[in-house]
């Protein structure tokens, strides 16, 4: 039994672990790829169109005889749909999360949470048509009789909001469930009811997780394509009210995708300039979310 403890070689272990590492590093290649893919055409684009004109111009008509490349109209439409989506998804999502985490019987939660998550499984094309036909056509115009056209940032944003509810609900429910039971018990032992415990102890304790959920919702809303392409309208104009139609950044990308532009042409590069702006917007939002989640992890 007195064999030595000397090291044995394990070439297979080494190789397999190397493969794992390469797989992990592959994800960086994707990001680098995205950056190159967006930057190269964008730089060509900005060689012809000054950055300032792109960022602050108020007329978006890249494919007309009298072309102009001010992205502000697309940005306003994106801002409207995003804000409306959040106005729907944040209260609904947080309400559902508080209910599931603090009030629902565990068996009820086991049924309700998955059903809620099914909302996230509905393909966005389907949501898109639902937004145009039912929400815009039937609800807003017929039932409510509102003065709005066939498309509106309201219908698109609203449906997008419903689509995001499970994302916000699920992540913030996780954050609330992660709050130690000891805090709930401590609160209950002081004579607080469940509403007080939820609002004054659990909610603040889970706050950074909840904010992260919301921020993630923001980036989903900014990046969602099919719903806005179908329901927000295709006209690039500065949107000043929720009942107006407008083309979002993703909406432009989708509609441009239906045509076919030659690699390297200005039209083609326009697509990537908007893509770059979209990418940077979500990137900023993501980093905020990640930073918040970091802090939240350190809390317990």
């Amino acid at each position, binding site marked *: 039994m007195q064999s030595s403890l000397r090291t044995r070689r394990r070439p297979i272990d080494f190789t397999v672990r190397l493969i794992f590492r390469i797989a992990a590093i592959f994800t960086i290649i994707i*990001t680098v790829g995205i950056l190159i893919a967006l930057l190269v055409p964008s730089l060509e684009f900005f060689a012809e169109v000054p950055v300032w004109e792109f960022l602050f111009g108020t007329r978006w008509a890249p494919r007309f005889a009298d072309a102009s490349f001010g992205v502000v109209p697309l940005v306003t439409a994106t801002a409207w749909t995003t804000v409306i989506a959040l106005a729907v998804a944040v209260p609904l999502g947080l*309400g559902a999360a508080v209910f599931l985490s603090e009030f629902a019987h565990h068996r009820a939660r086991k049924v309700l949470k*998955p059903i809620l*998550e099914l909302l996230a499984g509905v393909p966005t*094309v389907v949501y898109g*048509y639902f937004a145009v036909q*039912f929400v815009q056509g039937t609800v807003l115009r017929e039932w409510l009789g509102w003065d709005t056209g066939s498309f509106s940032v309201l219908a698109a944003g609203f449906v997008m909001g419903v689509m995001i509810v499970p994302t916000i609900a699920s992540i913030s429910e996780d954050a609330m469930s992660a709050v130690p039971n000891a805090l709930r018990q401590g609160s209950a032992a002081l004579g607080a009811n469940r*509403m007080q415990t939820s609002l004054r102890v659990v909610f603040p304790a889970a706050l950074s997780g909840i904010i992260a959920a919301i921020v993630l919702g923001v980036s989903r809303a900014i990046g969602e394509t099919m719903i806005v392409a179908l329901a927000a309208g295709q006209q690039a104009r500065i949107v000043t009210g929720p009942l107006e139609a407008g083309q979002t950044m993703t909406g432009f990308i*989708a509609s441009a995708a239906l045509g076919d532009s030659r690699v390297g042409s200005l039209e083609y590069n326009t697509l990537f300039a908007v893509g770059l702006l979209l990418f940077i917007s979500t990137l900023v939002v993501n980093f905020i979310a990640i930073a918040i989640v970091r802090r939240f992890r350190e809390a317990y």
Partner: protein
Amino acid sequence: MATVTRGMSSSTAPTVRGRAKGGETSPRALIFLVLLWFCLLFALFFLVVLLVSIVVDGYARVDSRLFTEYPSSSPEDAGARPAILGSLWVIATTAVMTLPIGVAAAIHLEEFANKHNLVNRAVELNVQNLAAIPSVIYGMLTLAALGFFGVVNKNQVWVGALALSMLILPVIIIATREALRAVPAEIRQGSLALGATPLQTVFRNTLPAALPGIATGSILGLSRALGEAAPLLLLGGLVFLRFDPNGLMSGYTTMPIQIFNWTGRPQEGFHELAAATSIVLLVVLLSMNALAIFIRNRFQKRW
């Protein structure tokens, strides 16, 4: 000294009977609870309305022709066969391309990576970030890559699968990591304490124990890919074809794109077909979600 106006003192102890305010059934608490119910039920109600409206529009065309016929210029003869098969091809290819890489990357990050190593931290941050990048961006990446490598024919199964793979890779990595993390450290320690190598520990213990979680995450990721239309639109997925896709280089279309296509037609019959195809797609997606949830509830161990 704080003065408190509440009947105190031990001898004249007040009763513990229900108070009007503050209790579990106080008006505020009840209103709050009603609001919470509303939040949940509203979302569920919306789902029901959506399902009902689609079923009403399309149930009449969910028949055998939908599955056997090819698209046609007349809605009466048309079916979604190539789109259904195309979705299958693309998703299967996506799964084959993504799962090994995703699981391998997750194992590296969760089991082996030195968390202080700069590269690993970058990878970790990067994966979180990739997960929130809009799907159209992946379409644009693939488009640019094809341009770079001089591939002109974009309508090929592997091209669509490539875009969707990159789209769901972070989802799979994150789900796998979570599943691995849920396997208690004691299991790993138990294995290592018996003289197993870290790799043996992963393959014989951690990974099998994490399998339900990985399966759940992968199914959810793939179902997301199955419902995607935007990146494929960028990649020339919007085509009319009357043949079954038959290989990685084959032309294809998918259900979401077929739905998009038909809804854009003038004829009412195509709209009905689009709704019918939506029903099929929804049934598939909701079954995948249900399967994932089933696996999660049934097989995921509570340690």
